[in-house]
C-alpha cells in the first residue's frame, strides 16, 4: 500500500474535489431554498464550455471564468422560471437542462471550431493559475505549485456559505423559505424571490466548478467532460445533510475515492494477483448516498419544502 498513499494522492484529491465543492455548495443554495436541483451536471457543462470557448477567444482565463458564471447563471435562471413561475416538475425540468447541455456545446463547437464536440487547446499560460503563478514571489512549495486558486476559493466559499446560512438574515430567510414557505410568507418574506436567488446562485457556483474543469484542471472542453460530477456533487450534498461544512467534507471524500481509482489503475493488485476492478471504487459515492438516504448512517433530512412549488393563498 505504500506505493499508493503518497503526497500526490493528496494533491490529486484536492484537484478532483474542487469542482465537486463548487457544484455541491451551489446546489445547497438551491435546495435550501426549496428547489430541487438535479441540473448541476448541465450547469457545470454550461460553465465548462463557455469558459473554454471564451478563454480561447479572449486569451484571458478571467474573462472565460466570468463568461462561464454568466452563462451558467442564465440557464439556472431559466430553470428557475420554468420551476417557480410555471411550476414545472423540478426533476423533469432539471433533466431537460442536463440533456440540453449534452447537445448545445456539441452543436456550438461544431459551428465555431468545426469540431465534433470539443474546443481547441488553450495554451498553458492562459489557464486559471495555481497559487504560485498568482504570487510569483512566493516559495515554490508543492502546495503553491500544485494547488489552483479555484481550489483555495472553494474552501473559502464553503466557509462563507456556512457563515451566510447560519449567521445572517439572508441565510435565515433562505432556510425558512425552504423549510416552511407559508410561515416565511406570513412573516413578510418574499418566498419566490428568494428561491430565484437560490437557484441562480447554484448556477453561479456550478459555473465556476465547470470552468475549473475545462480551463483549470484541463486545457480544453471535451464532450460531456463532467462525466457525472454534477450528480456526485448532488450525492455529496445529501451525504453532507444539506450543510456547508459536511458537504465540503463529503466532496473531499468523494474526490479521494476518485483519486484512489486513478492511482490504483494498473498499480494495486489483489492478493490473487489480479487488478483491482476500479468499477467498485467508482461505485462508492453512489452506494454511500443510497445508504445514507435510507437512514442507515444517521438521518439525512431534506429541507421541509424541497420540491414543493409555493402558491400564495389569495
Amino acid at each position, binding site marked *: 500500500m505504500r506505493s499508493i498513499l503518497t503526497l500526490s494522492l493528496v494533491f490529486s484529491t484536492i484537484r478532483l474535489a474542487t469542482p465537486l465543492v463548487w457544484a455541491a455548495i451551489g446546489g445547497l443554495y438551491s435546495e435550501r431554498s426549496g428547489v430541487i436541483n438535479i441540473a448541476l451536471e448541465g450547469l457545470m457543462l454550461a460553465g465548462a464550455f463557455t469558459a473554454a470557448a471564451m478563454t480561447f477567444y479572449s486569451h484571458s482565463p478571467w474573462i472565460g471564468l466570468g463568461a462561464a458564471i454568466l452563462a451558467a447563471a442564465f440557464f439556472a435562471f431559466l430553470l428557475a422560471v420554468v420551476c417557480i413561475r410555471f411550476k414545472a416538475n423540478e*426533476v423533469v425540468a432539471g433533466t431537460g437542462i442536463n440533456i*440540453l447541455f449534452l447537445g448545445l456545446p456539441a452543436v456550438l463547437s461544431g459551428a465555431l471550431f468545426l469540431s465534433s464536440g470539443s474546443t481547441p487547446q488553450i495554451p498553458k499560460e492562459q489557464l486559471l493559475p495555481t497559487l504560485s503563478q498568482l504570487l510569483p514571489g512566493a516559495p515554490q512549495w508543492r502546495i503553491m505549485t500544485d494547488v489552483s486558486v479555484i481550489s483555495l476559493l472553494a474552501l473559502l466559499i464553503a466557509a462563507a456559505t456556512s457563515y451566510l446560512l447560519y449567521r445572517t438574515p439572508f441565510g435565515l430567510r433562505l432556510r425558512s423559505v425552504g423549510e416552511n414557505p407559508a410561515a416565511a410568507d406570513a412573516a413578510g418574506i418574499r418566498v419566490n424571490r428568494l428561491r430565484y436567488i437560490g437557484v441562480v446562485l447554484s448556477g453561479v457556483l456550478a459555473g465556476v466548478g465547470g470552468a475549473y474543469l475545462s480551463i483549470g484542471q484541463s486545457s480544453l472542453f471535451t464532450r460531456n467532460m463532467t462525466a457525472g460530477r454534477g450528480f456526485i456533487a448532488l450525492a455529496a450534498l445529501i451525504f453532507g445533510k444539506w450543510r456547508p461544512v459536511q458537504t465540503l467534507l463529503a466532496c473531499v471524500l468523494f474526490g479521494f475515492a476518485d483519486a484512489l481509482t486513478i492511482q490504483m489503475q494498473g498499480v494495486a493488485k489483489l492478493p490473487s494477483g489480479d487488478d483491482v476492478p476500479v468499477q467498485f471504487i467508482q461505485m462508492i459515492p453512489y452506494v454511500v448516498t*443510497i445508504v445514507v438516504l435510507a437512514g442507515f448512517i444517521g438521518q439525512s433530512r431534506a429541507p421541509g419544502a424541497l420540491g414543493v412549488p409555493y402558491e400564495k393563498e389569495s
Partner: protein
Amino acid sequence: MKAFRELLFPLIAVLCAFAVGGLIVLLIGDSPVETFRLLLGSAFSWPDGIGYTLFFATPLIFTGLAVAVALRGGLLNIGAEGQLYVAAFATAWTGITFATLPSVVLVPLCCLAGIAAGAAWAAIPGVLKARFGSHEVINTIMLNFIAVALVGYLTQYHYRLPGDPIMETAPIGSGARIARLGQFVPGLPARIPLNLAFLLALLASWLVYVLLWKTKWGYEIRATGQNPAAAEYGGVSIGREIILTMAISGALAGMVGINEVLGYRYRYYDGFSDNYGFTGIAVALLGRNHPFGVIVAALLFAVLQRGGVPVDAFTQLVSKDIVLILQALVILFVAAEAMFRRRSRQRVVGSRQGVARQV
C-alpha cells in the same frame, strides 16, 4: 374538448421547441428550413428511412412506457437507463450461458431474464422508498451509475472474449436470436435491424393500457398516483403499490435488451444505450403518460434520431446533436405547460406533483 386539449398542448410544446431550435440553427449561421427538411424528411423513405425509424422507436417505446407507468403511480423513474443496462446484460448472460438450448426455450428464457432483471433493479428504489421513505429520484440516479459500473465490470473481467479490444461480451447462442422483420416483409432487407421486438413494443403498449385502465391493479396504481392518502384510506397498501409500480416500470425498461441483444447486436455491447432512459422521460411527458401517446412520441423522436444522420452529412455547420437540443427543449416546454394555459396554473396537478411532494 378534453381530448382536443390533450393533443393541443404537446403539439404546441413541440412547435415551440422547433421554433427555438430553429433560432439556434439560424444563430450559428445555417438554414433552419434545410435543417428541418433533412431532420424530418429522411425518415419516410422505403425501406431504409422507415425501417430505421421504427427500429429507433422500439427502445423509446419501452422506456417511454416505463416512465409513464411510474408517473401514473406518482413515481418519477429516472433510472430507466440503469434498468435497461442491467436487463440487457442479463439477457445476454442467459443467451451465452444457455447457448445450446433450442430456440423455443432460449428466446423466452432470455426475454424473461431481462424483464426480471429490469424489474428487480427498479424494485430496489421502490423498496427503499416504501421501507425507509427515501426519495426514488435520488436513488434511481445513483443506481444508474452503479448499474453502469457493475455491468462494465462483468463485461470487462468475466464475459469478454480474450483479446477483444472492444468492451463487449461473447456472442449469444444462435438459438437466442429473434427474427428481423425483413424475413417477413417483402422489400425490407435483413440488414436493417428492425426486429420482432418492435411488435413486442406495440403489444406492451396495449398491455399497459389494459393494465392501467381495465384492471384492479392498474386502478390502484393510478389511485395511489393521484392521491396516496385517499388510496390508503380506500384500502390500498401504498408501500406495496410503490414497489409494484417500480417493478413494472423496470420490467418495461428491461425489454430494451430484447431489441438490442436478441434482435440487433447478438451480444451485450457496453454503453449501447443512446440515452434511451432519459429520452423516455421526454417520450412519456409528450405522450401524456398514455401508452398510445407514448408510441406517437417515440416515433417523433425516432424520426429526429434518424434525421440526425443526414443533418451531420449535408449541412455545413449544424451537427446531429441538434436532436438532443430539440429533445431538451421539448422536455422543458412540456414541463412548463402552465405557460400555455390562460386560466389557472393550479390545473397542472395530479400525479406529476404528487411525485415531488414526498421528498
